């Protein structure tokens, strides 16, 4: 389901782009966003390493999972706009 939503958003972007209602982005834009997400990932890893309470570790791991999902999607997006235009199967 998560993938479906991502694919739906990407298709919506392409439709809006065709209608002139979206701002076109290129790989450098995706790379910039990915850099920010990687910085967040590093921050969370350091926080987990410093944490001692199990609840805090669990919460931070949940956040890390989200950050990694976003990074993964950034990679998919890069593939979609640089080489293979076919989005991953939903």
């Amino acid at each position: 389901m998560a993938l479906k939503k991502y694919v739906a958003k990407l298709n919506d972007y392409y439709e809006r782009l065709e209608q002139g209602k979206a701002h076109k982005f290129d790989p450098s834009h995706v790379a910039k966003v990915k850099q920010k997400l990687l910085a967040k990932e590093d921050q969370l890893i350091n926080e987990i390493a410093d944490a001692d309470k199990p609840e805090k570790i669990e919460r931070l791991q949940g956040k890390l999972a989200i950050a990694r999902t976003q990074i993964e999607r950034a990679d998919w997006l890069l593939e979609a706009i640089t080489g293979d235009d076919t989005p991953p199967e939903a």
Partner: protein
Amino acid sequence: MIKKLILITILGLLLAGFWASPEFQEIAAGVAIFLFGMLMLEDGFKLFSGGILEKMLTGATRSVPRSMAFGVVSTTLMQSSSLVSVITISFLSAGLISLIGGVGIIFGTNIGTTTGAWLVAGFGLKVNISAFAMPMLAVGIVLVFQSSKYLRGIGYVLAGLGFLFLGIHYMKEGFDAFKDQFDMARFAMTGWRGLIIYTLIGMAATVVMQSSHATLVLIITALAAGQVSYENALALAIGANIGTTVTAVIAAFSANYQGKRLALAHFIFNVSTAVVALVFIAQIRDLVDWISNGVGIAPDDFSLKLAVFHTVFNVIGVGIMLPWLHRLITLLERVIKTPMPDVSQPKYLSEAVDGFPETIENALHKEVKHLQNNAIELIAHGLNLHRQALYESQDIADTVKRSQATLDIDIGARYDLRVKTLYAAIIDFSTRAGGKDLPPAIMTRIYNLRDSATRIVEAVKAIKHMRRNATAFTRVDKGKSTEIYNGLRTEIARILVEIHKLDDAAPGSQSALWLDEERIQVGRDKANTAKMIESLIRNGEIDPIAATSFLNDSTYAYLAMESLIEAGRIYYVEAETAIAEVEHILTIEDDEQDEIAAEHKTDIKPAHTAPDQ
């Protein structure tokens, strides 16, 4: 009252002049057409704003020489030092350029404005200028009716220039005819008396017409017709230089303290230059004669020599003031002190920033941040928390648990003073911005900022509602009830800390995506609240009354959390729209959380390495 009296006096003098002399009508009409042309030029250049002008201005003020060069070039192109001064004051008030950059521009405008005299003396008087004016007017007016903003802008500029030329033509014709009827040269005065009186006349004429260009054109055309002596024309030009600062001073009334400083700098510079020119007028005249000989200007071409004089004394003025620039800045900062911030009043929204899309957006962005700061303070205090303690804490839950003391605040009064006032100003400002013809992308960001402000206020109001119970259940330990209320306080505190981290991050490194994590956590906890309470009631860990209070307050708490996150998401969205599109695609939705939890391992080693850039 005084303004009305001045207006009546001016109209009276005009009518008297028209009655006394038809040639005076032609001169007055020439001046009016010239001024109308300047207004059209101003409107034309404003249509180019929303990108080009602002990018040039913010880039051009990185150093004093660049600022000065910008002042020279922009004033030459726009033929209006007043317009450039007003733009500079707006940008300075909005915090887009520095004071020293602004002063550099003002120095440059004083040199750039002298090109007007060259245009008239070197071209306007020597050719049939109306022959150029007619086609410019015709083409310009056609373009003015186009739908494209840039074509309309070009139209206004062309038509404006056409009216300028036409105005010069009528002034020239008027003075030529006038000299046959009435010899104004009879009123020529020599010596210091003449210098002072004609300087004052030049100053007064510029104040009335609000244009040093118009005054210079009048002087040059009168000089060419022999209606004023060369010596008196020089004094008039010096007076015009002082009078032009009045426009900047008037613009500064609606500006913040930085704008006022710039207007004062303009006044100091022009008056100092005028004093130097008056004291050394004989020497400067000799210098002008020497330069004129050198470049081949005829000894009796007083119009061109006036243009040389105008340029020379302004360049001398810049040359004298430049080494004292930093001391001037210090003086300005001492005379017009930075006001103590009153957190309850808007700091960035003023009439001075109203004129240009970039200043409007920038000012609104800063004011929403101001509102956010006030709101976060009130939210923290409303929950009996201290922000600094939260930001420095290694264990937020523990910090919240130990924050039991009730902070003695009247949250309602503080909301009215520090949140509602700013919110009202933001709504007013953004609504008025909606009535201007702003570029769509900027308008979207303005409405988004307004929405961010609305969400911030929602968050504060939600905390107002829950403060009483949150305080009652946490100031002493009441077992499970205290624990669950502290849970809510902790969640809200974590969001405040995340927003603080976004603020603290290096510019350009923040991303609204960082708030996805908090948003998903809030969604998860909100969904589990009812089940959690049911379990506590069944186990006898809380009584039903406390449970209903908590359920009610948790609604407010989650509203506050969601509003804060949404406000932050809007506020920290990338200004660069292409990156904002990327962030939108990568945003995780609330209902994707379980799948994500199942997909990802909790291995703390990095899953990705940094890509090669």
